[in-house]
């Protein structure tokens, strides 16, 4: 693929256990364009988070590696900002101060290329909180605001680092359906505005189809890998109500559901299913190469 921005190059991940190494990921390979929105979907324990952590630099892949803009990733850094599942805000700081910590780190240092003055930083912090519609509760602490608002602040903190890649680990997993829909709208707006490259982990099929340019469906672990990649060719901006009647949208949804619930059953659900899975995995690999 031309214009490769982020290259997840054949990564494998083994974790040492007392019973020998546990292979969590086997040969995951994905190339992304700049500004692309990719969702990772799969059953629990299939290694989605491991992929994300490797890209973030929090884990080091046993084999293979990650290349961002022709530079290998070998440690975490603010150009690959992470939005954590449980917001991970510092509970003793206000929303503003949480974002400030990140902004000071990226723009406030003397050796920083994009050094901002104090006033510029303040403006930038407020701008990012405004982007996620948190102006009104800027000076509240995490325990004084709702779950959705905390997640917004988490996103603002990540965006404020001006990351090349935004990594989101089930960002809306803990939210109720209405708040989640609201957050998805905000995220689509922000993505349209800023054009960040995004990798998002999700369990939610609708969310994946609504937001993504591509959906990466992962096979079950151990030795999880990419099962299939689905290109979502729907025009943006997307509207969930309009799309619900769209034949293409429903087709994509169906594809993902079929993958998750027919081809990749939950591990340990049935012995027969697992055996069938193993037989069908070569076929899945073929599909994958086609999609790529």
């Amino acid at each position: 693929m031309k214009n490769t921005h982020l290259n997840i190059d054949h990564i494998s991940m083994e974790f040492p256990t007392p019973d020998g190494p546990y292979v969590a990921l086997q040969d995951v390979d994905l190339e992304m364009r700049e500004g692309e929105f990719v969702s990772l979907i799969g059953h629990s324990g299939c290694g989605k988070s491991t992929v994300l952590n490797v890209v973030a630099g929090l884990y080091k892949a046993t084999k293979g590696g990650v290349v961002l803009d022709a530079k290998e990733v070998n440690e975490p850094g603010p150009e690959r900002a992470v939005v954590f599942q449980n917001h991970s805000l510092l509970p003793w700081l206000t929303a503003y101060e949480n974002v400030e910590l990140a902004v000071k780190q990226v723009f406030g240092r003397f050796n920083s290329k994009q050094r901002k003055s104090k006033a510029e930083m303040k403006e930038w912090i407020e701008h990012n909180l405004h982007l996620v519609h948190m102006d009104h509760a800027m000076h509240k602490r995490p325990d004084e605001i709702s779950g959705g608002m905390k997640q917004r602040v988490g996103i603002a903190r990540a965006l404020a680092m001006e990351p090349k890649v935004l990594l989101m680990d089930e960002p809306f997993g803990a939210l109720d359906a209405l708040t989640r829909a609201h957050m998805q709208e905000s995220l689509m707006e922000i993505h349209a505005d800023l054009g960040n490259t995004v990798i998002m982990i999700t369990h939610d099929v609708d969310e994946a189809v609504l937001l993504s340019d591509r959906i990466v469906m992962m096979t079950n672990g151990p030795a999880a890998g990419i099962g299939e990649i689905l290109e979502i060719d729907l025009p943006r901006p997307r509207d969930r109500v309009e799309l619900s009647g769209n034949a293409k949208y429903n087709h994509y949804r169906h594809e993902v559901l079929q993958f998750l619930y027919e081809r990749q059953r939950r591990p340990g659900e049935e012995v027969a299913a697992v055996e069938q899975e193993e037989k069908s995995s070569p076929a899945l690999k073929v599909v994958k190469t086609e999609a790529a």
Partner: protein
Amino acid sequence: MKLTRTKTFTDEQYSVFIRTYIFPLIAIALFLGIWGMSASQVQTSLGQLPGPTAVFEQASNLVDEHVAAREKEASFYERQEKRNAEKLVKNPDAEIKVRTYTGKATFFDQILTSLVTVFTGFVMASLIAIPIGIITGLSNDLYRSINPIVQLLKPVSPLAWLPIVTMVVSAVYVSDDPMFDKSYLTSAFTVMLCCMWPTLINTAVGVSTVDKDLINVSKVLRLGWFTKVYKIILPSAVPMIFTGLRLSLSIGWMVLIAAEMLAQNPGLGKFVWDEFQNGSSNSLGRIMVAVIAIGIVGYMLDRGMLMLQKKVSWDKSVVLR
């Protein structure tokens, strides 16, 4: 509708009032009753074991003695000033002497001495325990190395430390014009040795159990070591550190009384010891006043720490008691 609501509300307040004030008062009354009855059954060589009334009498005696001593002190200074003024009138170049009052310390002076001593020990303990706790909490290996030593020293009684501390203080603190009494230093160091462990252990645990996600945040932000400790690890460990400090202070207060008794630091411990040696018919009553005072001061110290903890704790959802 409105009427019934107001009524239930007052009913509720009423029952809250009973629960918070009346129940404890009943318990105290019962306690005093049992104490009074059983004390009258015990005859000691110093007379009958004092009941609540005898103790109350001794408490007011101690207050009177304190007031009398203060009056005496005030009049001493008054006389001295008068005398010096007269001297100066007679001869403006006269050499005047100002002497400080050297009366016997009252009960309340002794409480103050005890408080100063316990705080000295407690502050020294905290200054040692918190940094060590942070460093050991940050490294599992260091924690494992230091843990056996801590566990070994933690249960040692102040009475075992005291002779060693006394000898070390006498050997090391040699000065012609000592700023501190040796007894004060000995007591404070003994308090320090006994009360640093809960703070050390709690700080280490607090630091090592910082939420992994927050550590990941610091990695993604590429925070430096110092910023990470200062901005993420310390605030996150503050509740645990304060739990340790509270435990340390109450242990320190308990240890202090024993230390003062043996080191003869002029605090509450010495008061109890002196009264015991004195052996008058009032002694047991006066010792019991000291016991109650020790209890009240200990309680107030704990409440003070709790208030401080509530003030600095960011986690308002935790019920502190």
